[in-house]
């Protein structure tokens, strides 16, 4: 912990988590737990085809089935004009979104929703689904990104031409857009290099793998007012998107966030909420819906699979002179992969004078890609950090020293335009070098690999409320869904600001009618942005409490200062007054002005990016190709850890997901484009017995733009593991892996085919 952190009483401590007891006793209500009297069960009919034209849907037999209360198809949702709304990376095109939640002219992936029903029981609902007749014209499909980019590939949209290309193409393709970033003179940079490595890589699409499947309850009354309770990363976004998709006002929906069993980006959008709302509006009864695991795999957004080429040059003494990369990303059935992020993050940890990144967003017959932990950055990091390892070897440098020599610092020009605003990367590398395990010897068939990663971290709009009870306890409400411990971190920051004990603060997630707009819990933004809103609200209350103390003492408010949870005279000449604690002031609230409370709102900026540097030791079984992770050290600049246990948990979780991405996780399709491994038995995420204890090293370089120095911590940790493991495998068995996952059969085949280092 940094020296600055020691000045705090609560920030940086590890109190018991406030959501712990409800969760371990089973009292916590997750998306599927919520119940209402008279509720119906909603079920979705999904496409069995990867790509087909819908010639007709006949729901009459389902509607006639006794018990069925409502059936909806795309005809029950208003269509939207074809228009990209908002920024390029996160542009929303509701022509696409309404077709993703319910197919119209075509189904574009296996699992694509085509109809939904509501009935008193799951059995009746499922029987009703079996009675819906869909007339499909099956079309050729394409899933692989490189295949989808070919001129003769089956087209998902016959009229889509590539944006970002001039002159505009006159032929349609599956390439939705092209983006490019660049600085310096690439040709001169590569001419100055003594060593150049240029390689191609592929990554598999992977799912976020949240344990809780999507679930919600919707209820609409005859007056058109409705409520939604759901498992999501942002109930304000649930409200906004559901209203837009139904063609009603957001003011007609009140959305409540239930406990969430993981999201990792995959619950920042809607799937079931608008369907449940449409069914409920149609029959005026509450409708509850929950996806099966199979539905989650077949119908919700994973992150993109990708192919890429990376070329980097450096001098004999290890200075990078130029870097160039092209990334091709699967967007899934509709445009919008995280390829822009990949282009911006790829070289961000490094000071490179001449660099270019090019990205292609490519549609294919898979579910639309959704955000997943630092979207795009882990994919580009796999290629870039693998090539850097090869260059470090060519120069004979230690891989950490090689990165240190090229590390970005405050003021370094970034490939995407501005200069880097904060330090933090160098410190993570120094933490690795100083780690006692970094110099430990390794055994036969074992290897040590190093890699780093970058993520922007987010800011943006957040709201909070603070109220003081008559005993001085404090209620903090925010609009941020608590995915990773935000109730604890908000309570700690409120306790620190007021100077009261942590156990005097209660933190809740408020519904959309009870607090101001708050953007999703994503982008590693909540502890930063919502923390600022909480801090602001606390200080408004403190100002109010000082006013009340001044009134009681008959002095000017400037003569009252606040510290240690109480009003104190600001100096000896103010008068001989005993301090008034927050509880004593709250007890006199009626006398001094009534209830004590305030709201804080912000559009928070000046967030600092996150850097993570990691090394791992692995052992390869030369007979099976199985990789055992023996040791994993992850150093991350966290700004300041408000609740270090949660921060360590974020780092450990990100690394574990990265290990799964590296070694096991992939989608397996049959020749008709149907997913064959839609379950955790066959889609294998790492479990505890696969893993060593992940050693999270908290590097604290505080962000001066936050009252407690916070930087986002949730995402960057997933960027390095894939390359770190690939680099370790290369050291262990002299075999460079260019494709994920590095599963036993793939590694065994590479070792058999290789026999020599593939680095050259």
């Amino acid at each position, binding site marked *: 912990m940094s020296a600055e952190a020691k000045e705090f009483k609560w920030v940086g401590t590890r109190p018991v988590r406030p959501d712990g007891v409800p969760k371990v006793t089973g009292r916590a209500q997750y998306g599927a737990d919520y119940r209402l009297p008279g509720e119906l069960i909603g079920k979705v009919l999904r496409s069995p085809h990867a790509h087909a034209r819908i010639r007709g849907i006949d729901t009459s037999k389902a509607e006639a089935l006794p018990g069925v209360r409502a059936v909806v198809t795309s005809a029950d949702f208003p269509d939207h004009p074809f228009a990209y*709304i*908002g*920024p*390029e*990376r*996160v*542009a929303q095109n509701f022509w696409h979104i309404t077709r993703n939640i319910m197919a119209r002219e075509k189904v574009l992936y296996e699992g694509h929703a085509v109809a939904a029903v509501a009935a008193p029981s799951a059995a009746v609902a499922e029987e009703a689904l079996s009675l819906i007749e869909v007339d499909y014209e099956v079309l050729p499909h394409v899933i692989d990104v490189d295949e989808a980019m070919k001129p003769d590939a089956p087209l998902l949209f016959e009229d889509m031409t590539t944006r*970002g290309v*001039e002159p505009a193409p006159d032929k349609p393709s599956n390439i939705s857009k092209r*983006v*490019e*970033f*660049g600085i310096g003179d690439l040709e001169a940079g590569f001419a100055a290099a003594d060593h150049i490595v240029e390689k191609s890589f592929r990554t598999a699409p992977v799912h*976020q793998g949240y344990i809780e499947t999507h679930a919600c309850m919707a209820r609409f009354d005859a007056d058109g007012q409705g409520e939604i309770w759901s498992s999501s990363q942002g109930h304000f976004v649930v409200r906004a998107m559901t209203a837009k998709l139904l063609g009603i006002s957001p003011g007609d929906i009140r959305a409540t966030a239930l406990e969430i069993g993981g999201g*990792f*980006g*995959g619950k*920042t959008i809607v799937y079931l909420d608008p369907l449940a709302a449409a069914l409920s509006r149609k029959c005026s009864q509450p409708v509850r819906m929950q996806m099966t695991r199979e539905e989650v795999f077949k119908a919700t957004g994973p992150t993109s699979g990708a192919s890429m080429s990376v070329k980097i040059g450096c001098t004999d003494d290890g200075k990078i002179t130029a870097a160039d990369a092209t990334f091709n990303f699967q967007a899934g059935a509709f445009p919008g992969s*995280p390829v*822009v*992020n990949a282009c*911006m993050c790829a070289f961000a940890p490094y000071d490179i004078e001449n660099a270019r990144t090019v990205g292609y967003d490519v549609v294919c017959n898979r579910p639309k890609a959704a*955000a*997943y*932990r*630092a*979207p795009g950055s882990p994919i580009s990091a796999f290629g870039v950090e693998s090539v850097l390892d090869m260059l470090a070897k060519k120069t004979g440098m230690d891989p950490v020293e090689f990165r240190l020599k090229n590390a970005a610092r*405050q*003021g370094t020009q970034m490939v*995407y*335009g*501005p*200069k*880097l*605003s904060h330090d933090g990367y160098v410190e993570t590398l120094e933490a690795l070098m100083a780690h006692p395990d970094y110099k430990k010897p390794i055994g036969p068939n074992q290897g040590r690999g190093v890699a780093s990663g970058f*993520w*922007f*971290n*987010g*800011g*943006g*709009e957040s709201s909070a409320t603070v109220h003081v009870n008559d005993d001085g306890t404090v209620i903090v409400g925010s609009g941020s869904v608590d995915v990773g411990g935000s109730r604890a971190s908000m309570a700690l920051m409120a306790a620190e600001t007021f100077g009261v004990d942590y156990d005097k603060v209660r933190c809740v997630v408020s519904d959309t009618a009870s607090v101001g707009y708050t953007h999703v819990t*994503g*982008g*590693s*933004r909540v502890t930063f942005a919502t923390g600022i809103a909480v801090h602001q609200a606390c200080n408004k209350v403190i100002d109010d409490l000082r006013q009340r103390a001044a009134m009681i003492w008959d002095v000017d408010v400037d003569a009252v200062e606040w510290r240690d949870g109480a009003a104190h005279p600001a100096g000896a000449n103010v008068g001989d007054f005993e301090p008034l604690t927050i509880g004593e002031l709250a007890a006199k609230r009626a006398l001094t002005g009534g209830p004590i409370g305030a709201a804080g709102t912000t*559009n928070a*900026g*000046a*967030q600092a*990016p996150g850097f993570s540097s990691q090394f791992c030791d692995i052992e390869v079984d030369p007979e099976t190709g199985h990789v055992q992770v023996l040791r994993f050290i992850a150093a991350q600049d966290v700004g300041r850890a408000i609740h270090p246990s949660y921060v360590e948990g974020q780092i450990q979780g990100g690394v574990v997901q990265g290990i799964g991405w590296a070694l096991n996780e992939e989608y397996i399709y049959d020749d008709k484009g149907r997913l064959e491994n839609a379950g955790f038995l066959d889609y294998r995420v790492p479990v505890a017995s696969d893993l060593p204890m992940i050693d999270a090293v908290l590097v604290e370089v505080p962000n001066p*733009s936050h009252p407690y120095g916070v930087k*986002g911590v*949730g*995402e960057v940790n997933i960027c390095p593991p894939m390359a770190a493991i690939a680099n370790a495998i290369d050291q262990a068995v002299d075999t460079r892996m260019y494709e994920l996952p590095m599963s036993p059969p793939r590694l065994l085949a590479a070792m058999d085919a290789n026999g020599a280092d593939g680095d050259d």
Partner: protein
Amino acid sequence: MGPTVQVRFTEGFARAFTGGVREFEVEARLLRDVIRAMNERFPGLGERLVEETTVAIDGMMHETAYFQPVPPGGEVFFIPKLEGG
């Protein structure tokens, strides 16, 4: 005359909206002034900036919003908006 700030765009954004010119100098105290000045030069660009970009002011990332102060001589870099998981 107010203080001047340097306005920068990515190559793709400039190609699409400013005839390929990536750097401008405008008088501004708030980001509102920058957006207004650029909109005067390229009618309609102001809305694009608000809707489609994040801004880095001397390297510090912010949502593109009117209220943000810009220091004299500072660099205002408009880049594609970002999203996280």
